[in-house]
């Protein structure tokens, strides 16, 4: 009866906790058969057959116990089988000793029976004590296993979370990169738009500026033909009067005027082409006096064409003996156009306030700075000025005081870049609020 319980529980613990796969024979779970069939059968034998077949039953228990110990020994690395071995071995030894003495030396058995029984009881106690401790160990093991699993599970959950977050962050990063890319593209588009917008403002001015010289070319050539006809008539009559020499003088003058106005028109066309053409970045010797006069006129006529009510006086103070400047003329033109447009905008705003006696005036003045080998250009207006708190902002991209849709806010920031980065010069502003604004450009001659 005792052996049955020992074998039954030992097998049930082994099957539950140890690896049973090495004990499969032809797909048969040997341990399972032993556990659920052989052990109960031997038990039945033991009980039913009683003392008559005691040897058979006890041999059966001996074999089963040996096999169990063999299995435990094979898996002794496992902490559980180690302690089970420790618990079971003394009992096994005492059982074998008892078995051998009982059947091989019955005489000795009779004299030592009580000692052997005592030994048997001691080993049994040992077995139960270690069995219980093994069970506790098993529980601890189970708990540890559970905890381990819990930790693994939590780790997995954590890793999953980390992966999710990482993905989210990566996605956000990609989105941000896309946004930055889009912004860069938009910025480039805006720069192009700003260029086109200033070209649009130019067109009207250019049309007006070209029309006048062309009219002169046409009119002077017409009137010259008339003069020549008159001269021809006088020649045919044979007497040349003082009038004839006057006509000749006029003709010479007229041809000079035709040539002058023709050049004036082609200069404007050239200018327009230079402005619209993408900047080649090619530096040329630029006459600042001429460039400034051209662009303040273009700005004035451009604004006039856009707004009939707009008006302002403007003055150009050219500097004598001004050295040419090595510059990119179309870029410099854009800056001058922009500064002039701003100046005219400022005076037109002030004029709209109907202050008695106010005369809008924009001045562009050149100055030679021989000591610094530089040329100074100032664009001044007597408009409303720039409030102190905005002075630091006006060169920032997208800053504009104009109503939405009327200014890109890029004009001055681009101008600033063109002067400082593009030409190694300086662009500064001074303003008295309510009275005047002066933009100064200092350009090194080379």
């Amino acid at each position: 009866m005792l052996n049955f319980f020992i074998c039954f529980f030992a097998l049930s613990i082994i099957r539950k906790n140890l690896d049973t796969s090495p004990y499969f024979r032809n797909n048969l779970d040997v341990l399972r058969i032993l556990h659920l069939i052989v052990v109960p059968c031997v038990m039945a034998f033991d009980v039913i057959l009683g003392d008559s077949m005691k040897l058979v039953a006890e041999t059966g228990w001996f074999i089963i116990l040996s096999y169990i110990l063999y299995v435990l020994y094979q898996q002794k690395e496992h902490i559980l089988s180690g302690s089970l071995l420790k618990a079971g071995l003394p009992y096994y030894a005492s059982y074998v000793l008892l078995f051998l003495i009982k059947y091989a030396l019955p005489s000795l058995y009779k004299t030592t029976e009580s000692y052997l029984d005592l030994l048997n009881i001691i080993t049994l106690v040992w077995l139960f004590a270690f069995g219980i401790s093994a069970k506790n160990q098993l529980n601890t093991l189970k708990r540890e296993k559970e905890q381990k699993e819990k930790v693994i599970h939590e780790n997995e959950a954590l890793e999953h979370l980390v992966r999710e977050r990482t993905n989210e962050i990566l996605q956000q990063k990609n989105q941000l990169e896309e946004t930055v890319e889009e912004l860069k593209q938009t910025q480039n588009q805006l720069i192009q738009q700003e260029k086109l917008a200033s070209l649009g403002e130019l067109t009207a001015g250019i049309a007006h500026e070209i029309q006048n010289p062309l009219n002169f070319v046409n009119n002077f050539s017409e009137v010259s033909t008339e003069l020549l006809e008159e001269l021809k008539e006088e020649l045919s009559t044979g007497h040349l009067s003082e009038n004839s020499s006057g006509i000749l003088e006029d003709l010479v003058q007229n041809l000079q005027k035709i040539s002058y106005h023709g050049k004036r028109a082609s200069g404007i066309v050239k200018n327009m082409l230079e402005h619209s053409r993408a900047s080649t970045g090619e530096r040329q010797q630029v006459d600042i006096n001429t460039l400034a006069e051209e662009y303040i006129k273009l700005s004035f006529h451009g604004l006039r064409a856009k707004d009939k009510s707009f008006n302002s006086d403007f003055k150009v103070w050219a500097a004598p003996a001004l050295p040419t400047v090595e510059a990119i003329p179309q870029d410099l033109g854009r800056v001058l156009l922009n500064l002039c447009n701003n100046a005219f905008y400022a005076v037109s705003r002030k004029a709209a306030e109907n202050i008695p006696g106010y005369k809008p005036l924009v001045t562009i003045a050149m100055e030679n700075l021989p000591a610094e080998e530089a040329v100074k250009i100032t664009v001044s207006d007597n408009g409303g000025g720039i409030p102190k708190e905005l002075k630091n902002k006006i060169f920032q991209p997208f800053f504009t005081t104009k109503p939405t849709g009327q200014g890109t806010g890029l004009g001055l920031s681009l101008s600033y870049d063109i002067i400082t980065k593009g030409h190694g010069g300086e662009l500064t502003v001074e303003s008295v609020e309510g009275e005047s604004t002066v933009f100064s450009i200092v350009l090194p001659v080379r």
Partner: protein
Amino acid sequence: MKILVVDDETDIKDLFLQKFRKEVRSGTMEFNFATSGEEALDLLKGYDPESVLILSDINMPGMTGIELLRKIRGKHPVAPPQVMMITAYGDEANRKAATSLGADDFLTKPLDFNELKTKLLK
């Protein structure tokens, strides 16, 4: 007849004097020139308004032709002096403004001198 031509382009003077050289020579027309509205107003002070015809460009820096017209019509609400305005081609806005301010006639740029001559001789 005294004609005051107001235009910021200085070469307009030579052009007019040559185009109307016969009239100038014969003394039927006398031309004076001003390159700004302000100058024109100064010159007008010395004239008898009865015998003056003013021919003014509109698009001028400083005082525009429209303002000049307003100032003249402020003093002389109706002709004389006659005021003819020279407008850019297709500039309807200024034409309307000038009409409402009392301009007597219009010429379009580029100037047709034959048309101008017939108008002046009327």
